[in-house]
């Protein structure tokens, strides 16, 4: 069993000299964290707005100013030609247009409820919906102020039912809180899997695997010696990335980090096992990369990382149960955000453990200590 120690040492000697691998393990994830943390904002800002003011009144200008005063919209132009708007949208110069009809001010003053049209480019459906929401907000504030200032005598309709909202687990509605724990899971899947798969296929390509197979090493010693270094590295990565998420990106952890560490170790058996599995079905590093890439894309898609599982068609929803990442994704998010403890996580922990054991033992069985 002490031969395992030599294998582990050899693997670390190789990793130490392999700068790209170290970069992949520690630098790239931190960069991804940095970019993700900044890219992921639910807030839509600076929507390009054209104002089509056909009224040219004091109130229509005040309305335009109300829009340009927020950072939600950026007023890119004033025009009186409604027909030009679609063409401007085709050239991506305008995303939304506010059409203020002639007689806007006079109708408003008379309480005739003037029609206010808002044209929105629907290609990016999410932005369109959010922009419309903002527009409604700006309008209602504009009207409140108008009613207060200009029509102090006019009666504001009283809102008889008020909704008191409590946004649980993520009161700031921060995307980071949701996505960064997800990114930790994605990294803990991709990197161990790729490294394990490539490390075995590299030895096969170089012929050193053949050399190892003629030594008295037992199968379990060979596997342990090759897998332990990557287990250690992946675990170190989990620690580094989680620490960065908490310290640098101020991600709040509601639950227990010890629980997270324990379940992370459990999950690593799945990803290392998958890496080993990929290496048993491929002959070259190139093939291994392709197969691993496909598996990773499938797992990412089905995990709920960026596509919520409830949104999926039924067939896909069922397919997600085959994705081990789905369970760990749910676990990590729940521990981070809801502070869930083991009992309420069991519905995810149990299938994840079963998957880990199945994949790991299947690939160990498939790995033969022979050629051909």
């Amino acid at each position, binding site marked *: 069993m*002490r*031969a395992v*120690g*030599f*294998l582990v*040492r*050899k693997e670390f*000697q*190789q990793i130490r*000299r*392999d700068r790209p691998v170290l970069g992949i393990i520690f630098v790239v994830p931190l960069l991804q964290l940095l970019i993700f943390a900044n890219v992921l904002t639910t807030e839509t800002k600076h929507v390009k707005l054209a104002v089509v003011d056909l009224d040219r009144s004091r109130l229509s200008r005040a309305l335009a100013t109300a829009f340009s005063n927020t950072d939600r919209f950026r007023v890119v132009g004033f025009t009186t030609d409604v027909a030009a708007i679609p063409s401007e949208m085709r050239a991506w110069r305008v995303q939304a247009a506010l059409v203020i009809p002639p007689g806007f001010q006079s109708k408003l003053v008379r309480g005739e409820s003037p029609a206010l049209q808002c044209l929105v480019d629907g290609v990016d459906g999410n932005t369109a919906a959010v922009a419309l929401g903002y527009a409604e907000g700006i309008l209602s504030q504009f009207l409140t102020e108008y009613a207060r200032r200009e029509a102090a005598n006019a009666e504001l309709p009283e809102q008889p039912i008020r909704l008191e909202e409590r946004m649980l687990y993520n009161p700031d509605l921060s995307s980071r809180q949701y996505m960064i724990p997800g990114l930790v899971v994605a990294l803990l899947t991709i990197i161990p899997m790729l490294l394990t798969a490539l490390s075995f296929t590299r030895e096969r390509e*170089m*012929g*050193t695997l*053949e*050399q*190892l*197979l*003629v*030594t*008295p*090493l*037992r199968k379990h010693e060979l596997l342990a010696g090759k897998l332990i270094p990557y287990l250690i590295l992946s675990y170190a990565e989990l620690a580094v990335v989680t620490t960065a998420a908490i310290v640098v990106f101020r991600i709040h952890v509601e639950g227990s980090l010890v629980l997270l560490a324990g379940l992370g170790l459990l999950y690593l058996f799945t990803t290392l096992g998958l890496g080993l599995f990929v290496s048993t079905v491929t002959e070259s590093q190139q093939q291994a990369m392709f197969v691993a890439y496909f598996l990773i894309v499938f797992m990412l898609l089905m995990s709920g990382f960026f596509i919520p599982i409830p949104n999926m068609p039924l067939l896909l929803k069922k397919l997600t149960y085959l994705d081990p990442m789905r369970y760990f994704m749910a676990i990590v998010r729940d521990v981070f955000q809801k502070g869930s403890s083991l009992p309420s996580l069991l519905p995810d922990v149990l299938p994840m453990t079963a998957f880990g054991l199945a994949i790991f033992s299947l690939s160990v069985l498939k790995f033969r200590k*022979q*050629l*051909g």
Partner: protein
Amino acid sequence: MTRASADRWEDGAAIQTVELTRRFGSFVAVERVSLRVRRGEVFGLLGPNGAGKTTLIRMLCGLLSPSAGSAFVAGLDVARAGEAVRRRIGYMSQRFSLYPDLTVEENLTFYGGVYGIRGKPLRTRLEEVLAELALGPFRESLARDLPLGYKQRLALGCAMLHEPPILFLDEPTSGVDPRARRSFWDLIHRKAEAGTTLVVTTHYMEEAEYCHRIAIMDSGKVIALGSPTRLKEEHGCESIQQVFLKLLRGDGGSTWQTPRSPSGESGVLGS
């Protein structure tokens, strides 16, 4: 270990195969090869590319299971006692399978550890091997930076660090310049004099002269077997090169179809 195999070991045979066959699908890579290698012998396997030399060696090392027949190495049945066989052999593959990103010393230490040598014995053995193969000046160099001739020595070093009684060298001299080849063969002979059995494959015909006995293989079969001198006499040729060409052309008539069993040679069984 069977009684019979133990007997053969006592008998002086380091390696013995019986009707050893390996098929890949419908292709027969090695067909009913029976031969016997004596202890302390330098045994050459000759043949064109694709003759089945490497497949044969891989079966003897337990890297491939035979489709039929059996192989005994160091008196042990390879199919049953693979683990024990591996402890008694060293194998140097034709690709000089080294870790390019480990130093000479790290490569040797690693293989030593894999064979269960450690601590003081490992350090002593390491110095011995470095001295024997004149690798001392390179101990801190990465394997990938070594000249080809030294890579070859390092590969041999890794294969013999655990002092195996039997060494398999698969095309150990391919691609290496003539002077390095010459000195490599000197090394091989020193090992043989010290009692190691060596099985060497090569496609350099002149190297056959350095072997005690050779087997010429073609299309998976052994078509000639014996000492170089005897083979040359028998075929009336001046060099092994000529013997080889004669056999491949089919001048020897029946040699193409059936393995030749030269009279008085005990090496071929069951022909």
